[in-house]
C-alpha cells in the first residue's frame, strides 16, 4: 500500500518528465537518426543558451518576481555583439570605425551594458517598488525600441571567424556552448546553495517581510539578482548570435516565456522561495526534447506550440498541487 502511494507520488511529481521520456523513446523507435551523437550535440547546442537565460530568470522567480525583458535583452545583446564582432573586410559593417576587438572583450562590454539594464530593473523594482511584471514589461519594450534604433532594423552578419568558433567549435567531443552552460550551471549551483546571497534570495522568496526583519538587505539582494540576470541574458545573446551567424531585432523574441516555463517545469515555484539549478536544467531539457521529438515526427509547428502550452499548464498545476499538499 505504502509502495503504491510512493509510486503515485513519484509519478504525479514527475508526470511531465515521464511523458517526455516516453515521447523520446517513441520517437527514437519510430524515426531514424534520433538517438545519434549529432542529434545529441544539436540538443546540447540548443539547450545551452536557454539554460543560461533560465538561470538568470530563476533568481527573479525565486524572489516572487519575474523578468519579461529577458528575450528582448538577449536580442539586444546579440545585436551589440554583432556590431562589435563583424569582420573588418565585411562590406556592410554596421560600425565601419569599430576596430578589431577580441571576442572576450566584446563579451565583457556586452555583459556590462546588459548588467546596467538589469540594474535599472532591480532599482525600479526594489527602490521604486514597481511590480516586477510591470517594470520588466516596460523594460522589454524600451530594449526593443533601443535595439531597433541602433540597428536601423537591419539584420547583421559577416562575423569574424573567431566569434563563430565560439558556437561551432568544440573541446574534443564537447561543444564550447556546453562548456559555457556547465560553467554557468556550477556557478549558479554554488551561488544558490553555498553563499549568503543564495540564502537571502530564498528567504526573500519565502517571506520578504520576515527576511527584512531578520536583517536581510532586500533591496541590495534584489538589485544584485536583476543585474546578474542581465549579465546572463548578455552571455546568452552573445552565444545565440554566434550560433545563428547573425542577429536582428527579432533575435530572442519569446525566449522569456520559454525560460519562465522551463523554470516552472523544473520546480521553481511561481509562489517564490523554491527552485534548484538541477530542476531548471531538467525544465529546459524537457522543453527542448519535446520540440525536437515533434520535429522528428514531422509534426506541424502549430501543434508544437499547443503541446508546449499544455506542458506549461500541467507544470503550473503540479506546482499548485504541491502547494496545496503543503497547506
Amino acid at each position, binding site marked *: 500500500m505504502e509502495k503504491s502511494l510512493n509510486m503515485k507520488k513519484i509519478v*504525479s511529481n514527475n508526470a511531465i518528465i515521464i511523458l517526455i521520456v516516453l515521447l523520446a523513446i517513441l520517437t527514437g523507435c519510430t524515426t531514424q537518426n534520433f538517438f545519434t551523437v549529432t542529434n545529441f550535440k544539436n540538443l546540447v547546442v540548443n539547450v545551452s543558451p536557454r539554460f543560461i537565460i533560465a538561470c538568470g530568470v530563476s533568481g527573479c522567480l525565486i524572489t516572487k*518576481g*519575474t523578468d519579461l525583458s529577458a528575450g528582448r535583452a538577449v536580442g539586444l545583446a546579440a545585436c551589440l555583439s554583432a556590431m562589435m564582432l563583424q569582420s573588418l573586410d565585411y562590406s556592410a559593417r554596421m560600425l565601419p570605425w569599430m576596430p578589431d576587438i577580441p571576442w572576450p572583450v566584446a563579451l565583457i562590454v556586452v555583459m556590462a551594458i546588459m548588467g546596467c539594464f538589469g540594474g535599472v530593473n532591480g532599482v525600479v523594482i526594489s527602490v521604486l517598488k*514597481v511590480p516586477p511584471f510591470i517594470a520588466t514589461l516596460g523594460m522589454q519594450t524600451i530594449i526593443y525600441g533601443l535595439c531597433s534604433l541602433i540597428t536601423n532594423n537591419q539584420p547583421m552578419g559577416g562575423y569574424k571567424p573567431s566569434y563563430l568558433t565560439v558556437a561551432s567549435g568544440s573541446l574534443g567531443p564537447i561543444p564550447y556552448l556546453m562548456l559555457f552552460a556547465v560553467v554557468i550551471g556550477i556557478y549558479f549551483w554554488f551561488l544558490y546553495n553555498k553563499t549568503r546571497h543564495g540564502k537571502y534570495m530564498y528567504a526573500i522568496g519565502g517571506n520578504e517581510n520576515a527576511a527584512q526583519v531578520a536583517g536581510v538587505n532586500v533591496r541590495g539582494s534584489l538589485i544584485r539578482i536583476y543585474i546578474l540576470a542581465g549579465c546572463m541574458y548578455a552571455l546568452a545573446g552573445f552565444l545565440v548570435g554566434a550560433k545563428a551567424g547573425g542577429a536582428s531585432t527579432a533575435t530572442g523574441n519569446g525566449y522569456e516565456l520559454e525560460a519562465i516555463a522551463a523554470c516552472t517545469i523544473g520546480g521553481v515555484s511561481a*509562489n517564490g522561495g523554491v527552485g534548484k539549478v538541477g530542476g531548471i536544467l531538467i525544465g529546459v531539457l524537457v522543453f527542448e526534447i519535446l520540440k525536437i521529438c515533434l520535429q522528428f515526427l514531422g*509534426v506541424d509547428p502549430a501543434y508544437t506550440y499547443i503541446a508546449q502550452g499544455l506542458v506549461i499548464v500541467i507544470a503550473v498545476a503540479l506546482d499548485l*498541487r504541491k502547494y496545496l499538499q503543503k497547506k
Partner: protein
Amino acid sequence: MDKEQENRELEVKEESTQTGTEGETGKRPSGGSAFEGIYDMLPDISIRSLDRFILLCVIALVLVIVFGVLKANHVFG
C-alpha cells in the same frame, strides 16, 4: 481595583504598540509581483479536482501529439 485598571491600560497600550509594529513590517519593502500570493488568491480547490484537471491536460497533450503525428503522416488525407 486601581491596580486592575492600570494593568488593563498597560495591556491596551502594549496591544496598540504591537499592532503598530505589525503595520510597519506589514508594508511591502519592495514592489509586488504578478506572482505575489498567486495561489492564495485562487478560490478553494481540492487536490482531487486538481488531479482531474491535470489528467485532462495530460490526455489533451497526448491527443495533440497523436493528432499532429497522424496529420504529418497524411492519415487524414
